[in-house]
């Protein structure tokens, strides 16, 4: 009980720190944007058009250069994103690295500050999670508590950045924890509330959308919102595909990885001379997209396509930053396009903003894999029930269609490409990430090919095993023999034969990096007592993993998951 209360307290503390960090981060980005002539306000207040044009190209280029150098100090040579923390929590690894956390936050800050078309919520979420994980490590808490602390940081970051504590709590559960244990709920809620209180003191901001109270969509417009949801899923898919495709292409460019962001920055700056809307997070663009008549249909298409391309280029070429804010902008532009077309067809009246919000939700929810969070953000930001139900209508089709065509979210797809498949749930991911190496036993009976059958039987009897493994003088694996076969040979009077003349029994062979999940696939088609572990490169025999220990590991992981996901305190 005391331990649980301490965890709640840690949650509140994490929430407060994450909120302060988030407020600091957001303020620093605003300050940099004004200073570096990225924000419209900064640009408008600067009176020299030629210098402004030079700055428009130079600032993102230099920002990209700085970010590229920064990434060389990170082990993976790229900034960490929410995908990393999802992986850490889903595989119960926890322990987010502090160094990579700090460098990734810095990378996000420079990228956003210099006008790259990326989002701020990714870095904020990762920063909060790193703080939580660090707190758990300082207090020497277990892996489960580490996961909860990470979720606390995530919830706090969302609560602070959006002024939406409920969305923060739901996001932490829906995207990061992926379970709803009461044990995690209380600390996460404490973090969200603490963060909300601090953020409302420090960051004042207007509602993201303004809705005139009189507008209520007609019943058949809801059908339109559902359709927007289906189409939005396609836009979301295009957005995610574009990000990943640019990433793949960038790897083939004859350009050093540390210079790629600078190239993206230069290209971004050049296009921004023509369409400045694509610079930065695009809050102004998002706002205009909710205003009927602010864009013509053609403008909407141009800005939508360019914003999508700019974001894919910035993230794919290695700028640090999130995918959420650009998705908000792209989605709102898409919704506004639907709204404009509906208005031109005489179908929509003063419900334009509903279309914009539906488009926003339809594109954003699939990208982050969080339909409930997106709905709650709309609800908490607008306080409008009518708008939230309209958004709900569009999410109905958006999330499942995108999941069918693409995957649960961009994060999950990125992880799957790095070898962590979360599509079959957490227990599988956990077993996939548990390495066989740790279960390795050296009790197995090994035989030299020159040993006689009699010697082999004696060794097996002494060890109490039914199978032995032949290794040559250079410890290379040379197949398995069973006690039964050896006995048969002895029965035939071949006791003096060498073991390499004995029949080979095929046994599964895996490398030391193979996962428990891989090992579990084998007992299904082979009945043996152990799996042989061999170093793939040199063919060296490393030992065996007994089926009993695989089963034990499986049970242990399942129990740990159960405790984490169904514990109450």
């Amino acid at each position, binding site marked *: 009980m005391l331990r649980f209360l301490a965890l709640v307290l840690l949650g509140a503390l994490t929430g407060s720190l994450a909120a302060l960090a988030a407020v600091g981060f957001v303020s620093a980005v605003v300050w940099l944007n004004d200073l570096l002539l990225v*924000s419209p306000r900064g640009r408008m207040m600067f009176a020299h058009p030629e210098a402004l044009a030079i700055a428009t190209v130079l600032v993102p280029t230099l920002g990209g250069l700085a970010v590229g150098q920064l990434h060389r100090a990170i082990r993976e040579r790229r900034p960490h994103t929410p995908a990393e923390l999802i992986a850490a929590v889903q595989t119960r690894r926890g322990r987010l690295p502090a160094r990579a956390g700090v460098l990734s936050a810095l990378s996000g800050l420079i990228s956003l500050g210099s006008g790259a078309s990326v989002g701020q919520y990714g870095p904020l979420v990762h920063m909060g999670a790193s703080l939580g994980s660090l707190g758990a490590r300082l207090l020497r808490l277990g892996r489960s508590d580490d996961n909860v602390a990470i979720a606390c940081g995530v919830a706090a970051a969302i609560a602070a950045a959006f002024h939406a504590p409920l969305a923060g709590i739901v996001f932490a559960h829906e995207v990061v924890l992926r379970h709803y244990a009461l044990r995690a709920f209380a600390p996460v809620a404490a973090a969200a509330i603490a963060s909300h209180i601090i953020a409302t003191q420090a960051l004042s901001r207007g509602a993201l959308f303004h809705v005139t109270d009189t507008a209520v969509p007609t019943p058949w417009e809801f059908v339109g919102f559902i359709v927007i949801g289906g189409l939005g899923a396609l836009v979301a898919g295009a957005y995610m595909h574009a990000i990943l495709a640019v990433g793949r292409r960038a790897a083939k460019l004859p350009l050093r990885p540390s210079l790629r962001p600078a190239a993206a920055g230069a290209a971004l700056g050049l296009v921004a001379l023509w369409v400045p809307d694509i610079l930065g997070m695009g809050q102004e663009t998002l706002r205009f997209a909710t205003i009927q008549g*602010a864009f013509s249909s053609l403008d909407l298409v141009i800005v939508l396509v360019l914003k999508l391309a700019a974001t894919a280029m910035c993230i794919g070429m290695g700028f640090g930053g999130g995918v959420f804010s650009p998705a908000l902008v792209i989605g709102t532009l898409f919704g506004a396009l639907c709204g404009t077309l509906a208005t031109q067809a005489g179908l929509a009246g003063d419900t334009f903003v509903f279309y914009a919000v539906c488009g926003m939700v339809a594109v954003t929810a699939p990208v982050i894999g969080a339909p409930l969070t997106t709905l709650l953000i709309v609800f908490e930001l607008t306080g409008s029930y009518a708008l939230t139900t309209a958004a709900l209508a569009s999410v109905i089709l958006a999330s499942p269609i995108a999941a069918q065509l693409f995957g649960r979210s961009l994060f999950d797809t990125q992880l799957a490409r790095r070898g962590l498949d979360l599509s079959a749930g957490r227990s599988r991911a956990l077993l996939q990430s548990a390495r066989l190496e740790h279960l390795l036993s050296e009790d197995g009976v090994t035989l030299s090919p020159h040993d006689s059958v009699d010697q082999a039987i004696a060794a097996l009897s002494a060890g109490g095993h039914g199978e032995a493994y032949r290794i040559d003088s250079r410890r290379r694996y040379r197949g398995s023999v069973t006690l039964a076969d050896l006995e048969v040979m002895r029965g035939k009077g071949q006791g003096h034969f060498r073991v390499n003349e004995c029949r080979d029994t095929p046994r599964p062979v895996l490398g030391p990096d193979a996962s428990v999940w891989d090992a579990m696939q084998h007992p299904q088609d082979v009945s043996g007592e152990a799996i042989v572990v061999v170093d793939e490169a040199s063919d060296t025999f490393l030992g065996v993993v007994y089926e009993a220990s695989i089963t034990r590991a499986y049970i242990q992981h399942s129990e740990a998951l159960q405790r984490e996901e169904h514990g109450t305190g």
Partner: protein
Amino acid sequence: MAQAKRPTTCARRLLTLGLATVLLAAPPALTQASDDTAAPLDVLSWGGTYVEAQRRALFEPFTQATGIPVRVHRYNGSLAQLRQAVNRGDVPWDVIDMRRSRARTGCADGLLQPLSAEILTPSPQGTPAKRDFIDGALSRCAITHSVFATVVAYRRDAFPGQRPTEIADLFDQQRFPGPRALQRDPAVNLEWALLSYGVPEQEIYRLLSTRRGLSLALKRLKNLEDLQWWEGGDAPVRLLAENKVVMASGYNGRFFDAMVDRDLPIEILWDGQVQEHETWVIPRGAEQAESARRFIGFATATERQTAFAQIIPYGPSRRSATRQVSNHPDSGVDMRLHIPTHPLNAKHAITKDETWYARTHDRIRDYFREALPGDSAGADNPP
């Protein structure tokens, strides 16, 4: 300058004396005696009813309380005189009443002394000054003492059966038909035009910083039919009084004067009011700097701010003072309805972004002139 015209004055001195006696610990005899010894405080302020109200609510009570006499000098609000005086090394004033926008420039140019929030008193309820003052009231060299607003006023008799309730109604000539009068300047008009699209107050200047935002705002203004441009501050009231327009922008003090003193059938639409700050500053080289700080502390106390706002419709910069404002001491008018900072009126108030205008005004004005070239005001435009 948002100035009300001279109100009818009756028993003002009597009342001030009464107030002073209640307030003060020092008996009049002692005050009289110290008058001769204390060096007078030279205050530079605006003219008209404004300075009369200051005399009654601030200067006379200050003299009563401290024995320091106050000498009032008038100016037109510009920095030119002060700049000359500072350069000359002979500054004849100790305290200046100055627009916040000018105070910012003056501070940056080193014409003003830094002011610490230490000189301010807490509210009667004990709220520390820093939390009691409205946002943006305390800057390095200036302390906001009151707030005035540019608002829209309309003729009560123009729209039978309905009243404008939000700033978007200024642009809605279907529901509220009739000619409008607006100041011939981009400031305030652009803000209102963009607000009418449903943009929240906090984002106005960020959005006006984009080409898209500017052209949206100008489109609204261009679509207004029967628009007259005014330049002199007295024109809006005159145009409304003569029934030449049914809605006009103008300073809240002028409209107050027209409604209360002249009994004209007009009403203020507070939605979207654009607020500006009046501040106290101490010039560099002021001889009585110590008395000046003492005066600023005294004049910005909750009680004095309340007294000032009850005579003239300027919003106090302290939340505690705004809450205490009640009726005009002479006419009995409920002043809460007339001061810009009262919560009833300030729900969707914009604070004019002076830093933004300082850097952009000329370019914005060019855009504005280019988009709205026609001088539709014609003969009605005052000189």
